[in-house]
């Protein structure tokens, strides 16, 4: 086996195991820690595929930003009380049906075999001149082809900021 195969399976096992732990832990703090482990695994997968920039973004933004946000909110909620309560929703049977269907789908596709998965044709490496590094390539495409979504994303983040402030601000006269 080649090194990258070994690494792939290592990361895949880490991702799936941590994801399962994330959704089954009784204590939310443990869930958050397992979520971090999942995200690190995904960053590893990115590195394996030569997406260094995204691996960095994953660590800084996802783990450093989003998960910390989760942990902040967990601090506002009394965890000790949480952990005594039931974990799963009472309508588990609906979920079981959905899970069985989705897993059946996955099984069907696995059974079909790898040959039936035809993705698009890989393009031959284009002449990009001096642009070689991953972040440079991303920058080039982001600010030419995806300029519009980039600008829209700024409004999206503005809306998220307004939303978070409007929702989480203390009630006037409550405290």
């Amino acid at each position, binding site marked *: 086996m080649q090194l990258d195969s070994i690494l792939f399976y290592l990361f895949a096992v880490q991702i799936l195991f941590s994801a399962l732990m994330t*959704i089954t832990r009784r204590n939310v703090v443990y869930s958050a820690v397992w979520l971090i482990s999942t995200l690190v695994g995904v960053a590893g997968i990115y590195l394996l595929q030569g997406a260094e920039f995204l691996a960095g973004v994953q660590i800084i933004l996802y783990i450093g930003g989003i998960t910390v*946000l989760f942990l902040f909110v967990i601090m506002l909620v009394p965890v000790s009380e*949480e952990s005594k*309560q039931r974990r799963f*929703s009472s*309508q588990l049977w609906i979920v079981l049906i959905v899970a069985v269907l989705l*897993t059946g789908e996955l099984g069907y*596709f696995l059974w079909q075999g790898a040959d039936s998965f035809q*993705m698009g044709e890989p393009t031959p490496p284009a002449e990009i001149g001096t642009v070689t590094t991953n972040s440079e390539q991303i920058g*080039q495409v982001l600010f030419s082809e995806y300029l519009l979504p980039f600008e829209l994303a700024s409004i999206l983040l503005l809306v998220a900021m307004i939303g978070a402030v409007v929702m989480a601000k203390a009630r006037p006269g409550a405290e």
Partner: protein
Amino acid sequence: MPVTHYLVLSMALLIIGTVGVLTRRNIIVILMSIELILNAVNINLVAFSDYLQNINGQVFTIFVITDAAAEAAVGLGILIALFRNKETVHADEIDILRW
């Protein structure tokens, strides 16, 4: 590594995330499960980007991460407002919240 392996990995992660959203009662864990789903999407995009030798997939990933951050911020904001009024973070203790 054949791209199929990544597709199967991402699909498994998608299933775990979906099951998490639908089964867990704790809203914070539900929001985490949504992050798992978006990570499944990203694994797909980066794998295809590598396979197709085409950087667009990685750029798409940046937008998905942006969206994940925005959704988490608003979701947790709403959760705090809810907690102020109700003192619960359990999905099925929200009276109207039944599915």
